[in-house]
C-alpha cells in the first residue's frame, strides 16, 4: 500500500523510542536494583551513590507520588521492573501490603536494627526514618507548658492562633488516623473540630509556610512536621530570620503514647527480579553511613539506635515516638479523611 509509510512512521518512532539508550541518562548496568521512590530528596541520591560505590550495584530510579506509584506497580503486575518500593508514608506501605504488591523478607540484620513497631510484623516493609508531627510555637508569646498534648491545642485559649495546612496532606491524615486507632472515632472527630475552631486562618500552604507565618505573628502555634523545622533552621535566607528567631518546638503527647510519627519506609516488590540486590540496598539504608545522611542531610529521625540526629533538631529536645503499630495508619486513613470532611477541615 502506498500510504503505508505515513502510517508506519509514527509507529517506528515509537519503537525507536523504546531503545534502551533513550530510557535513561545512564546506561543500564549488569548489577542493578530498580527503585520506585516517593522521596525527592537530594540526600537520597548521595545515599544511592554511596551504595553503588560500596557494592558496585547500580540504582535505577523512578520518582513519583505515592498513589501514582502504587497504581503503576499494580498495573505492571508480573512484568514490573520494580525491585524496591520506597515511600514516605506508612499508610501507603500498609496499602501496598494489603494489595499484595510486596513480598515478605526475613533478614536478621534488618530485624535487629529496626525497632519492631517501625516495621511490618510479616516483613513486608521496613521503616528507614521517622518524622514527627510536632507543634512549633512563637517563643515571644507562648508558654509551652500549656501545650503538652495534641488535645491541649483544642482549648479555647488558642482561639484564632492555630496554623496548619489542608487535610489534603497525608501527614495530617495519618495523625488523625493514629488518634482514631488510640482513642476512637468520636474523640478524633472532636479533636479535628477543636482545631478548626481555633484556626488563625483557613488551612493552606505548606508546612514551611506555617512556620513563616509564626515569624510574622499571623498565628502562634503551628502543627508541622519536624524535618521542615530542621530545614528552616539550616536555611540561611535572611527573609526567614524572623521565623528562625521566633520558633520553639513542643513534642506533643498523644494520649500517653508519645508523639505521633510517620515513617519513610521500603519494601521489596512482589515481582522483584533483583532480590539480593534489593535486600542489599535495604540493609545499606539502615547502615550507620546511610542513617547519618538521612539525619544530617534531611533532618529526619534515624531508626537505628546510636545514630545522632541533626544538630538543628537536637536543640529542640528529645522525641518520644508513639509505638503504635503503623499498619493502623493504612487501616484508618480513609476514616480520617471522612472525619476531616465532617469537621470542616478543608
Amino acid at each position, binding site marked *: *500500500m502506498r*500510504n503505508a509509510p*505515513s*502510517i508506519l*512512521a*509514527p509507529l517506528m518512532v*515509537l*519503537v525507536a*523510542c*523504546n531503545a534502551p539508550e*533513550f*530510557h*535513561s*541518562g*545512564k546506561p543500564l548496568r549488569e548489577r542493578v536494583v*530498580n527503585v520506585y521512590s516517593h522521596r*525527592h530528596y537530594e540526600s537520597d541520591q548521595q545515599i544511592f551513590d554511596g551504595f553503588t560505590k560500596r557494592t558496585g550495584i547500580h540504582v*535505577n*530510579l*523512578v*520518582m*513519583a*507520588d505515592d*498513589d*501514582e*506509584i502504587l*497504581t*503503576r506497580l*499494580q*498495573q*505492571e503486575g*508480573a*512484568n*514490573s*521492573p520494580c525491585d524496591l518500593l520506597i515511600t514516605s508514608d506508612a499508610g501507603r506501605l500498609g*496499602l501496598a501490603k494489603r494489595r499484595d504488591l510486596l513480598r515478605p523478607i526475613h533478614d536478621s540484620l534488618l530485624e535487629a536494627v529496626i525497632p519492631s513497631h517501625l516495621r511490618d510484623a510479616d516483613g513486608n516493609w521496613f521503616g528507614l526514618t521517622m518524622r514527627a508531627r510536632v507543634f512549633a510555637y512563637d517563643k515571644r508569646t507562648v508558654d509551652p507548658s500549656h501545650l503538652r498534648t495534641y488535645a491541649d491545642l483544642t482549648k479555647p485559649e488558642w482561639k484564632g492562633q492555630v496554623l496548619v495546612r*489542608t487535610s*489534603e496532606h*497525608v501527614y495530617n491524615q495519618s495523625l488523625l488516623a493514629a488518634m482514631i486507632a488510640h482513642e476512637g472515632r468520636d474523640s478524633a472527630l472532636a479533636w479535628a473540630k477543636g482545631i478548626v475552631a481555633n484556626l488563625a486562618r*483557613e488551612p*493552606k*500552604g*505548606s*508546612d514551611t*509556610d506555617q512556620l513563616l*507565618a509564626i515569624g*510574622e505573628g*499571623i498565628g502562634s502555634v503551628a502543627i508541622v512536621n519536624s524535618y*521542615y523545622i530542621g*530545614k528552616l533552621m539550616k536555611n540561611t*535566607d535572611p527573609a526567614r530570620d524572623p*521565623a528562625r528567631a521566633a520558633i520553639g518546638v513542643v513534642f506533643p503527647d498523644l494520649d500517653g503514647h508519645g508523639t505521633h510519627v510517620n515513617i519513610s519506609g521500603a519494601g521489596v516488590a512482589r515481582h522483584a527480579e533483583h532480590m539480593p540486590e534489593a535486600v542489599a540496598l535495604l540493609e545499606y539504608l539502615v547502615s550507620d553511613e546511610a542513617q547519618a545522611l538521612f539525619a544530617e542531610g534531611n533532618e529526619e529521625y534515624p531508626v537505628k539506635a546510636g545514630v545522632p540526629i541533626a544538630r538543628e533538631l537536637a536543640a529542640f529536645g528529645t522525641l518520644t515516638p508513639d509505638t503504635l503499630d503503623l499498619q493502623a495508619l493504612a487501616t484508618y*486513613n*480513609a476514616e*480520617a*479523611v*471522612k472525619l476531616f*470532611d*465532617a469537621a470542616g477541615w*478543608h
Partner: protein
Amino acid sequence: MRRRSSYSTRPVGIDQAVHRSSTLDPPRRPRRLFTLISLLALALAAPLLVVLTAPLHAQAPEWVHVRRVILPDHLAGTLELLGGVLAIALVLAVPSAWLVATCDFPLRRMMRWALVMPLALPTYISAFTYAALLGPTGPVSNWLADHAGFRPDIVDMQGLWFVLALVLFPYIYLPARAAFASGMSGQLDAARMLGASAVPRFRRIALPLARPAIAGGALLVAMETLNDYGAVKYYGVRTLTTGIFRSWAGLYDLGSALRLGIVLVLLVALLLWIERRARRGARQETDQVPVARVRLQGWRAAAATGWCLLVFGMAAMLPIGSILDDVRVTWDGTMHGQLPHALWNTSAVAAVAGLVTLVIAVLFTFRERYGRRSDPAIRLADLGYVIPGAVIAIGVMSLAGFIDRRQWLDGALIGSMGVLVYAFSVRFLAVGKQPLQGALRQQSTALDEAARMLGASPWRSFRRVNLPLLGPALIAAAMLVAIDVIKELPLTLILRPFNFDTLSTKAYELARIEQLREASWPSLMIVICGLVPVLLLERMLERRARSLGGR
C-alpha cells in the same frame, strides 16, 4: 469563494464541527486508509474510554461519602473558581486585544508579543511565585504589615482567580486580537461613518462579531483551570481535580476518583455546548481586510500604554523577575550539574511528542476534510485535552498494564518512552489539530475539487495540494504541542522511565520539598524553552498578518 473566518488564526482550541467545510463526496474514498485512521483514533481514545466506563469495571467503596460530601463541596469550589478566573481573564484579554489590534499607541509593537509571554509559564510555577511574593509572609505583605498595619494575602480563592487569570488570559487575547484585527473592518468603518463613537463601536459591533473567538479562548482558559492541581492545592481551594486526588490518595478509592473524573468530563461537555451556542448565529464568512488602526493621542495613548504595561508587568515581568531573583540568590547552589541532563530529556521528549502528535493530527484532519461523515472516534480522541493528566495516566496505565500483567512483552510497557509519547499524544492531540483545522478552513474546497477532477486520489490531493499550503500551521501545531509537553507534569511524573528527569519534574521535586528558591533554576529553563516557540509563533502570525495587509 473564501471560507476563511479570521478568528480561526488562533493557534489553539477546539472548534471543529460547526462550520466544517462542506466536503466532497468522492467516488472512490480511500477505505483502507480511513479504517487505519479510525483504528488510530480509537487507540488514542482508549484511555478516555477506560475512564468513562469506570463505573462498569472499578469498584468504588467510598462512593457514598464522595457523592454526598466531596462532590457537592468540590463542585461548588470548581464553579466559583471557573467564574472568577473567566471574568478576570476576559477583563484582562479583551480590552488589551482591542487596543493592540485597532489602535496605535507607544509600545504597541512590543505589546503584540509581550502579552503572549505568560503562556510560557506553567500555572503551578506562577502560583508558587505569586504566593512567595504576595502571600501572607511574602516581602510585600511583610512591608505593608510593618508600615500600613495591613497584611494582604493572595493565597485564597480570590487570589487564585487573579493568579490563574494572569497566566491564562493570552488564550483569549490571541484569538480576540486576530478577530479584531481583520474580518470586521467593513462593519467598523460603516459604524464610524454613521457617527458611532469608539465605545459603541466596540460594544455594539466588535464585541458581538468577536464573540465566537472570545468564547473559544475562554473555553481553553476553563479547561486549563479545571486541569490544574498544583496551584489549586497550594492555595487551599477545593475543585473536582483536588477531589479526585482526595478520593484516590486519602480514601484509597480509585473507583470514586474516576467517577469524579466523569463528572469533570460532563462539566466540560456542558462548557463545549455553551461555547458552540455562543458561536451559533455568528457570521462565519468574513472579509479579510485588515482594520485601519486609529492613532491614539494624549491621555488616551498614555492610558492604552499604561494598561498594557500593567497587564504585562503583572502577568509576565513579576513572576519572571521573581524567578530570576531566586536564580541569583541560589547561584552557587548544586543545581547546575543535574540540569543539562533534564534539559536534554525535556527537549528530546518534546520534539518527539510534537512530531508524533503532528503526524496523527495531520491524518485526522485529512480524514475530516475528505470523509463524508465525521469519525466519532476522532471526536472522542479530541477530549483527551480536557481530562486532568493524572486521570489520563490512569487510563494509559490500565491499558498498558493489561498487556504488562500478561507478560506478552519482554519488558514493561509502562515506563517506556513509547507509552509516555503515546500519553502525550492522547492528551495534546486537540492542541495539535486546532491550527491545522483553522488553516484548512481557509483553503477553498475548490482546490480539492480541481485536484480530484484531475484524477488525484483523496490522499494524493491532500498531500500535494492541501498539505503544502498548510506550511506555517504545521510548525505551529508541532510547537504548541511541544510547549505543552515541556510544561506538562503529572503524565511525565507517573509514566517516565528510570532515571528520566525533565525540567518540570525537577522543578516539581524541589517545590514539593519546599525548596522553592532552588526550583527557580528548572523553572527558568522551562520559561525559556516555552518562550522560544511562543515568540516564534507570534512572529509567524505577525508576518502572515502583514502579508495579508499587503494584498
